[in-house]
């Protein structure tokens, strides 16, 4: 290893990065865009849900139900007088739910049990389930108001008091922002590196490097360090925006966050290097990085979807993904704190992955004549 040779390689790589606007765009512009989008745009929490309220014969009671839905910040009510009109609105996609008070609602309320029908547009099942829950809540509230004078038979016998730890208001940004860090690190680590290295292979410039006194290990260092720095810059950007702009808490320590991120970034870089040295073609390397690194980081990492609920075979695949461990670490570090019983095993797995990946890459890049 020679410091002078490595510095020269680093300089060359840095120049290349700064001269090509596309790497900067990926490493800096994309993260900024994504964080603003995740912070301000994307949310799993419905609001202003358009709902049709079917009242066949309006009375003060039905007006009370309407008011309960209208007061809820989740709903926007359109009152119609027949079920057919409501169904038409739903088919045209103008409302996402129908609340129907049965005929003679008032009278049946007095003699016993009055039916309220809630129909939701079920295509987006997750949203539908949330809407259903909100509708029950609004009805419960209305009943509570009605019964506040007399005995409260609407409540109980068993009442669930629920608390969500680490995210009491159930703000979906709290888990979207840590997930975003994973995406950004995967993009710079695996995708960018795979492309850059594959280009050298494809153009034969790597062979040109081989005839120089530069060693394989030095080439790898020269290639990875600049992208490592780019990735860490992305982390800094995302974590600080999340913390200061969107008030996502960072309950763990900054030091641990930096350390585990550096570890994951190295694994991602190793993966990118391995892909490029196997495929040696930009087209294929780019595609594989996309398919084997980026998309699984979205779908199979536990970032959005719960991994415990997927079939066993798919779950086994997810154990092979470094992103899975990193997502678990980030969610814990951001929201719960430094929990060593999670940090140590997850880091150990990533460390093993790192060694395997770099070993394989080094063997594949060994100078060949």
């Amino acid at each position, binding site marked *: 290893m020679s410091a002078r040779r490595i510095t020269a390689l680093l300089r060359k790589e840095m120049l290349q990065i700064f001269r090509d606007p*596309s*790497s900067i765009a*990926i490493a800096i*512009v994309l993260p900024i865009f*994504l964080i603003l*989008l995740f912070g301000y*745009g*994307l*949310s*799993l929490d419905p609001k202003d*849900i358009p709902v049709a309220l079917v009242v066949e014969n309006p009375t003060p009671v039905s007006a009370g139900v309407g008011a309960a839905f209208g007061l809820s910040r989740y709903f926007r009510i359109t009152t119609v007088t027949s079920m057919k009109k409501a169904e038409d609105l739903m088919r045209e996609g103008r409302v996402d739910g129908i609340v129907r008070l049965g005929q003679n609602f008032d009278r049946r309320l007095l003699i*016993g*049990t*009055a039916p*309220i029908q*809630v*129909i*939701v*547009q*079920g295509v987006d*099942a*997750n949203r539908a*389930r*949330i809407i259903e*829950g909100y509708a029950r809540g609004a009805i419960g509230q209305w009943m509570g108001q*009605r019964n506040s004078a007399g005995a409260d*038979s*609407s409540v*109980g*016998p*068993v009442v*669930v*008091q*629920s*608390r*969500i*730890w680490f995210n009491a208001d*159930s703000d*979906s940004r*709290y888990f979207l922002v840590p997930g975003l860090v994973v995406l950004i690190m995967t*993009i710079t680590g695996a*995708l960018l590196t795979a492309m850059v290295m594959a*280009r050298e292979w494809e153009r034969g410039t790597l062979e040109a490097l081989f005839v120089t006194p530069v060693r394989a290990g030095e080439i790898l260092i020269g290639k990875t360090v600049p992208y490592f720095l780019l990735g860490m810059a992305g982390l800094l950007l995302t974590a600080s925006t999340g913390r200061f702009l969107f008030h996502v808490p960072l309950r763990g320590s900054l030091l641990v966050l930096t350390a585990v991120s550096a570890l994951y970034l190295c694994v991602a870089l190793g993966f990118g290097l391995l892909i490029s040295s196997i*495929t040696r073609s*930009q087209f*294929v390397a*780019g595609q594989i990085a*996309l*398919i084997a690194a980026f998309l*699984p980081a979205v*779908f*199979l990492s536990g970032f*959005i*979807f719960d991994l415990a*609920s*997927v079939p066993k075979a798919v779950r086994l695949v997810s154990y092979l993904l470094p992103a899975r461990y990193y997502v678990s670490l980030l*969610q*814990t570090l951001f929201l719960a704190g430094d*929990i060593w*019983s999670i940090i140590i095993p997850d880091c150990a797995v990533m460390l093993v992955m790192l060694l395997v990946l770099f070993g394989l890459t080094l063997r594949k890049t060994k100078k060949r004549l």
Partner: protein
Amino acid sequence: MESLRRIAALIWKELLAILKDPRSRFVVLIPPLLQGLVFGYAATYDLNRVRYAVYDQDRSDASRQFLAMIDGSGTFRRIANLGDQREIKSIIDDRQAILVVQIGSDFERRLLTGQPADVQVIADGRNSNTAGTALNYIATITDAFNSRWRSAKGLTSPPVEPSARAWFNPNLETRWFMIPGLIGMLTLVQMIVITAMSVAREREQGTFDQLLVTPFRPIEIMIGKSAPSVLIGLVQVTMVLALAIFWFRIPFQGSLLNLYPGVLLFLVAAVGIGLMVSSVAGTMQQALLGSFLTITPLAMLSGLNTPISNMPAGIQYVTLINPLRYVIVIAHKVFLEGASLRYIFPEMWPLALIAAFTLSFAVWMFHRRLM
């Protein structure tokens, strides 16, 4: 006529270039199928294995009945019975359980004396959506327990009984929503990348210049470059569609004749975006990274992962130029609602407009670069 023959020759050459290389053939055909399969299983908000722990201070018949209903629901797996309040923290912190159900020591006594009995449920909010869904399941189970308890003890039922029903997806399975949506998502990625990269590769290897000195007109080159991608896209769509219908058994309510026109427009629009990217990109690296810079926002703002109606109004307007948004709605409407052309027409004409715009923009850019 002459022009048609030239275009056909170019399309043939392009198809051969992609399909003759075993590695790129693999990349074009296998991943959509594999991804459809894996993500089809993974991309679900439904829970079926919620690990939970119990801290039952009452240990009465009533509390056992309540817990038996949770265990019997098929969704929850009890992993521990806690004997101490302090264990709750560690079992949640370590992610062994995502839910802890705590029953106070006066549970049965309060129930029998007609007072409301509290059950504390603590959820791990590190993924608050999962936590919310699990709590929703608990609420449903509690409702069932309550009505069973009331009828067993001869208590009066509550004055209002809400009944809920879902249209088009009666059991509210997220998979029915995600997989038809994946048809658009997976092909969008492939269309943009394949098109952008195939032009950039020619440019980087200098064969694009050779193409330009042939009698081909720029418009013919554009058609020759885009038609093969559209054909590959149709194959990919059909593969994922078959997977959805025959493997995942999602009921296909509509007609293929209503689905494919929209899909075709979408593919043309996506290829147009790929061409736009390649017309700005000078190298393959720029083409790939450029595709990536385009795909990410398109995917995020498609409404598949998070509903468009939850977004702020300004961003909702931005999604109007996103072709993915429309094809996902078309897929859902045809697939689940069995919608006829009348109901999907509002999604078709924006797609046609977007396709026309992206293609003509790309042609214009190529012309400009050639001058």
